[in-house]
């Protein structure tokens, strides 16, 4: 019989090993899944994890890693702050959409004027849009004690409806022959989040993600606010005792994660996506939750996890076109990863011992 025994201290070793272990178990379980779907499991796993990095067309896929990874990391960094404090913003998808809408709206308002000021203004508007959207659950929680999980999630559905309304109405391209969707920023130099180095995949969103990682690292390890965030998550009563004001923390954590999600939305709409459209959002806000946990809520971990998750997106697409692997299988694969991670996390705080059957 297995018996759990709490470790006197969380294990340092397992803190680093569990994400790797989870990835390996997921690969094994994923292979089984692919085999069930009638695909060669080794080929499928290789396509997902090897092709984008070292395959024939890796010159194309490698930059994509940054393009897909940047929004994931940007959002996940914001979420991780709240998750550490026990504040659960799971509506990043909504904040991402709103950031894209407000940022794009500012850019489109200036069209066709050209000025270097326009893009910074869009960035600011995107961040503020996400911030404002996240402030709704934050304010309701602080003022009325409303559950932030449910409110932030409900607002995703509201944001999706707003997105539809915007791409069909207010922000619709007047020269778009009646098709839904806004003007394309790729054809508007002042509002375009272009690659900084052509062909590298490096756009301003990647820069922002890197800055966010550094910012979060310093905050959590070197600043009293980060200490208070960690304290609140681990021992809320001790945080009260230390003088932390929980309401301020809620506003800060939700606000920051909202702003970062909004930024991610803006960089996406003005760059890789190009325009506001009904199906603009592809679930980055939810995948970022997996990224945050996979990275152990640690800034550097999140960066690595974001790249890994981007890899599964890209590899998944390749597997989809080359092997006919359904897109849903990749989604399932990502979900499994989070499952296994949560399961093996046990090893950091508990020791598993084999003991003879005992009834106590």
């Amino acid at each position, binding site marked *: 019989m297995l018996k759990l025994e709490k470790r006197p*201290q969380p294990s340092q070793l397992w803190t680093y090993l569990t994400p790797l272990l989870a990835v390996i178990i997921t690969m094994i379980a994923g292979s089984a899944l692919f085999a069930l779907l009638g695909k060669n499991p080794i080929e499928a796993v290789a396509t997902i994890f090897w092709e984008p990095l070292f395959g024939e067309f890796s010159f194309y896929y490698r930059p994509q890693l940054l393009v897909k990874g940047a929004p994931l990391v940007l959002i996940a960094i914001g979420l991780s702050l709240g998750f550490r404090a026990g504040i659960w913003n799971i509506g990043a998808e909504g904040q991402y959409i709103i950031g894209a809408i407000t940022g794009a709206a500012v850019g489109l308002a200036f069209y066709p004027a050209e000025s270097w000021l326009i893009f910074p203004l869009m960035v600011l508007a995107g961040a503020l849009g996400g911030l404002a959207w996240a402030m709704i659950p934050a304010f309701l929680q602080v003022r009325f004690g409303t559950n932030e999980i449910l409110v932030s999630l409900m607002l995703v559905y509201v944001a999706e409806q707003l997105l539809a309304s915007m791409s069909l109405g207010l922000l619709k391209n007047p020269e778009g022959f009646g098709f839904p969707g806004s003007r394309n920023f790729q054809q508007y130099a002042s509002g375009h989040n272009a690659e900084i180095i052509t062909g590298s995949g490096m756009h301003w969103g990647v820069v922002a993600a890197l800055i966010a990682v550094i910012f979060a690292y310093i905050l959590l390890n070197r600043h009293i*606010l980060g200490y208070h965030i960690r304290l609140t998550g681990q021992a809320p009563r*001790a945080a009260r005792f230390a003088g932390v004001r929980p309401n301020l923390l809620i506003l800060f954590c939700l606000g920051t994660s909202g702003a970062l999600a909004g930024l991610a939305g803006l960089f996406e709409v003005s760059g890789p996506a190009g325009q506001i459209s009904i199906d603009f959002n592809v679930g980055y806000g939810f995948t970022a939750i997996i990224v945050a946990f996979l990275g152990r809520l640690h800034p550097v971990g999140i960066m690595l996890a974001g790249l890994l998750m981007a890899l599964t997106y890209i590899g998944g697409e390749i597997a989809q076109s080359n092997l006919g692997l359904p897109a849903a299988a990749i989604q399932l694969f990502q979900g499994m990863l989070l499952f296994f991670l949560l399961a093996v996390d046990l090893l950091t705080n508990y020791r598993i011992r084999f003991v003879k059957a005992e009834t106590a």
Partner: protein
Amino acid sequence: MTKTLLRISGLTKAYPGVIANSDVSFEITEGEVHALLGENGAGKSTLVKMIYGLVKPDSGTMTLRGAPFAPTEPRAARAAGVAMVFQHFSLFDALNVAENVALGMENPPPMRDLATRIRDVSEAYGLPLDPFRTVGDLSAGERQRVEIIRCLLQDPRLLIMDEPTSVLTPQEVEILFETLRKLTSEGVAILYISHKLEEIRALCDHATILRLGKNVGTCIPRDTSAREMAELMVGSAFEAPARAGRELGDVALDVTGLSLGSPGEFGTSLRNIHFTVKKGEILGIGGVAGNGQDELWGALSGELTTDNEAIRLMGQPIGNLGPTARRDRGLLTAPEERLGHAAAPEMSLTENALLTGAKRENLMNRGFLKWAATEEFAKRIIKTFDVRTPGPGTAARALSGGNLQKFVIGREVLQHPEVLVVNQPTWGVDAAAAASIRQALLDLAANGTAVICISQDLDELMEISDRFCALNEGRLSDIRPAQGLSVDEIGLMMGGAHGMEVAHVEA
């Protein structure tokens, strides 16, 4: 007629790193009150958990009335006639008395019949209870009654009581003892766990003393002095804390008309509390658990804010300031709960040193943390207060209760407070650590700090306080000099018997 009810031979139970019980043997005869005596951590709880079927022994056997007894779960123990009143109550706040009783029974009758039986039994033993009241609204003494009634309804042969008097006033203790004597006269055996020696001398027929998991002796308490038992229990005698005579200074903390609704659903509101503490003075605040101690500590620490004028520190109103601002002004506090409140369990001692020391010890610069200085501070606490730990990188939860408590109190003491408020400073702490904590409080007062010690341990309060008062239902009694107070007087300050009735003893 004395027949052996329970025989325990060679019980051993080890946990990783700790041997909780090692080869413990003793016997309990029918109709006796048998004391199990020992310090915190001596293995008393593990032993009774084995008897109650919550923990399975590694080796050793038990017999109940001559038959082998090895309960695999509490249900089996209850069926065999063993009942237990827990130290930390096993009650459900949101459920009513009858539901709580039903949960402790194997085949409870329908609620209506059960309610009647609760009324009958509680009257018969002098412990009146309304079966339909919500347990969360009851006082600590009443809650204990619920547990006792729950046991009595099953006609137990052996009743285990784990530290039953820690939540009672001296008058309530008398009532409880009457009830227990009535039970023994009916042939019920009682296993009575405590570390309060006078109580054991008054009540118990035999005593088994545990130290570090081993049975280190048995005695007949009536014929043994408290001092002898203490030496058996602790292994060596401790010096009573030295109190030097000291000069009292100006008033450091002045509380006037402090009233506060409790934030918790089942809490106690504070009503019009007045007191002052002078520099160099120790004010002891006693009272039975749940009479507003947590709320008073919260109001003083700044976790709960009040009317600004209600609390003055060195003449300045601070009632609406939070914990950080109060700390800046010299009012430091230590809460009752070590893990999770005074310290974050998963964080290292260094990180925990930062918890209250950040500003007073100058451990940050415009919000940026000085980890090196923080570690130095943690090391200083560890050294000054003899905290046994591998180092400042150890997680708080890895420390024993006594060591962590020394760290937590030491953290505040080293910050040179003007006023220090502690709540239950030695609760669940071994005797050596308790003695050194009390000494630290006395030393602090001798250096001119005003100390407020909220505690349910009357011996502790009598030992260190200059003046004593008690909380009762959120009100503070008169404040009297501690020296010369009798047990009866103290009991009355704590609210007397709270209107409880004495058992109708006929035996």
